[in-house]
């Protein structure tokens, strides 16, 4: 295929509209722009939080003030003006939300448009949803059925009141506010997010899911998710996200903490489709997220699956701390970048317990002028006898102007460890495209097919309904970008 044709096709892709770019017109209750101790107090007061929570936030804020933005990433980042961000925005509540009937119809409509139905009759069967709109949780479905099993699934602001002992015990236990710049910021200003507790011996009867939507202008989203799986329990959790098209960059700095006790298993899946910015790189979400799980108990397991298609910049490393003996960490990732998008993502597997196991499968796809970096750390501590890791890192380039980079780091302090690394880089070839064409498959569909094939191992990890959604997303975000 000639260069001019290649450019034509890439241009077509570029003109693809972001389908979730609409805004919702709704009356908002917002904090004044900027960040100060007063803003931290304002957010805490809005949530009617206990004193200890406010103290924790203030400590985090004061710590954050002493930090500088990190600069080791493999992408360009214009300085962020933290005083130009609104740290709290919530739809004006007329009444306390006891049932869905009381939710503003505009909000229900917004989620309908996104394909997330919160009304009783139309809900996806078998999936309980917590919907977070800007800074607050709007509604959590299937609460009663879950409660029968003792499963707690609610907004974290609600958990602070209903289950303060659990929140107090675990919040910051996996990702302390001192962890990094954005975790400190999040601890100071987080507004909402989901809280999940699965009691001993319970297999959560349905998929749990949180849907995040940024709507308000100049607003950052700082949600915090905390999931605790007690001994012998199981839960599968999925988060999805979208945002309107806006010219300025918006910051999303979330923290997710997972705790898996003895023989517990947590499966955490993400389909990230924040607004990526336009083809010239204007606007889009900065997705700077700290996600970490702790395998506290023996034989526990934490599995991260992520499909990252959106955001102007994605910067995250969902990680596992393998403390319990025989614990198991997994990371399955697809990161797609197109146009001017940048992604620096990967994982950290920290082997502490004996006979711990980890597996990393990363698939990076770069098109347009985008850059896609895998960065991963496998660390085996002195006492972690017989640790095992297998890492597989595959990159696919579409077109000749994109870049793929791989930074695998190893820190092995125990010589009984077995660590394997495989890596590959491929290009969607014109031979593959022509072969598909010759069978009657157009170039757009061909790329969708080839990319989905490339990511299959990861997509197979997703719950069924979401796998289908993710496949479509991949096709939409890449259609036609041939090389």
């Amino acid at each position, binding site marked *: *295929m*000639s260069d001019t*044709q290649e450019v034509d096709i890439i241009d077509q892709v570029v003109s693809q509209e972001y389908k979730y770019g609409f805004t919702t017109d709704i009356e908002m209750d917002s904090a004044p722009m900027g960040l100060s101790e007063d803003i931290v107090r304002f957010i805490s007061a809005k949530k009617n939080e206990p004193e200890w929570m406010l103290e924790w936030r203030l400590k985090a804020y004061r710590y954050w003030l002493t930090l500088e933005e990190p600069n080791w990433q493999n992408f360009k980042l214009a300085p962020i003006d933290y005083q130009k961000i609104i740290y709290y925005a919530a739809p004006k509540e007329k009444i306390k939300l006891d049932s869905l009937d009381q939710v503003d119809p505009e909000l229900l409509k917004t989620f309908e448009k996104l394909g997330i139905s919160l009304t009783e009759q139309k809900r996806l069967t078998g999936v309980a949803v917590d919907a977070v709109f800007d800074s607050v949780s709007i509604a959590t479905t299937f609460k009663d059925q879950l409660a029968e099993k003792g499963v707690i699934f609610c907004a974290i602001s609600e958990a602070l009141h209903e289950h303060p002992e659990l929140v107090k015990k675990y919040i910051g236990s996996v990702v302390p506010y001192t962890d990094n710049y954005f975790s400190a910021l999040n601890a100071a200003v987080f507004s909402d997010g989901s809280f999940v507790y699965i009691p001993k011996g319970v297999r959560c009867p349905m998929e749990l899911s949180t849907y995040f939507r940024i709507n308000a202008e100049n607003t950052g989203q700082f949600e915090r998710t905390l999931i605790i799986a007690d001994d012998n329990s199981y839960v599968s959790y999925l988060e999805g996200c979208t945002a309107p098209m806006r010219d300025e960059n918006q910051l999303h700095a979330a923290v997710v903490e997972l705790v898996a006790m003895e023989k517990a298993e947590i499966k955490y899946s993400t389909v990230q489709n924040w607004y990526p910015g336009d083809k010239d790189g204007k606007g889009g979400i900065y997705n700077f997220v700290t996600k970490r799980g702790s395998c506290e108990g023996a034989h526990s397991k934490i599995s991260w699956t992520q499909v990252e298609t959106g955001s102007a910049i994605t910067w995250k490393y969902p990680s596992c701390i393998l403390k319990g003996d025989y614990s198991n960490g997994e990371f399955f990732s697809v990161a797609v970048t197109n146009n001017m998008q940048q992604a620096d993502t990967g994982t950290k597997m920290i082997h502490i317990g004996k006979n711990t196991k980890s597996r990393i499968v990363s698939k990076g796809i770069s098109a347009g002028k985008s850059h896609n970096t895998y960065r991963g750390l496998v660390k085996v501590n002195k006492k972690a006898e017989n640790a095992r890791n297998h890492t597989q890192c595959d990159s696919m380039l579409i077109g000749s102007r994109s870049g793929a980079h791989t930074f695998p780091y190893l820190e092995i302090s125990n010589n009984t460890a077995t660590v394997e690394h495989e890596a590959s880089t491929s290009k969607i*070839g*014109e*031979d*593959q495209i*022509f*072969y*598909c*064409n*010759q*069978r*009657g*498959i*157009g*170039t757009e*569909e061909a790329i969708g*097919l*080839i990319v*989905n*094939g*490339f*990511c*299959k*191992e990861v997509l197979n990890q997703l719950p069924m309904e979401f796998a289908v959604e993710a496949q479509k997303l991949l096709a939409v975000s890449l259609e036609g970008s041939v090389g």
Partner: protein
Amino acid sequence: MLSIKNLKAEIEGKKILNGLNLEVKAGEVHAIMGPNGAGKSTLSAVLAGRADYEVTEGTVDFDGKDLLELSPEDRAREGVFLAFQYPIEIPGVSNANFLKTAINEKRKYQGLEPMEATDFLKMMREKMELVEMDKSLTSRSLNEGFSGGEKKRNEIFQMAMLEPKLGILDETDSGLDIDALRLVSEGVNKLRNKERSFIVITHYQRLLDYIVPDFVHVLYKGRIVKSGDASLAKELEEKGYDWIKQEVEANS
């Protein structure tokens, strides 16, 4: 059905096809033979619409349509099928998924609804039996890790599924042992009928023992320099290509 007139094509400024003429009627099997580098694969690529080749002169009429005007995918949807000399691997995409996509794209082009899953599976089963295709090959990734023979059989299986009007086989016999050759040929023979035509490209005569052609053409330096019936292939087998080359040089 297919009428090629004075076809000239080049790649990177190098002239490969130099005024090729060929008439193929419905139901006919034409063999195209010729020494390496004669332009046989180029002919198949040009007919299938590969973009690297530039057609500088000539016309190709396919069932009343100007074939050269159509995109590669539309040529396929109109019923042109090329069995590749080197079938391509697509990791992670199953044969079945690939074919379902291909069939439904063709149906969309024809204004038809996508095929029902049960009908598709039934069709797969029938065609697998027809071309004696191993069932396990349909769920595996497309051509990935297939042996040479399996790849070629898979091409024939795909042809059976897509039911083209014209099947072009580019050196389908290359790299096959005698058993694989027989299986592939039997598959092709079962797909022969009154409407469907074939262009069978081969360097060796032995394939034509199994797929008996109606016509044999010799391609040399981008032109058809000799045509005859199946006996011409035998003659080439015995005498090689040198006498043809000499004949051509003498006449020019």
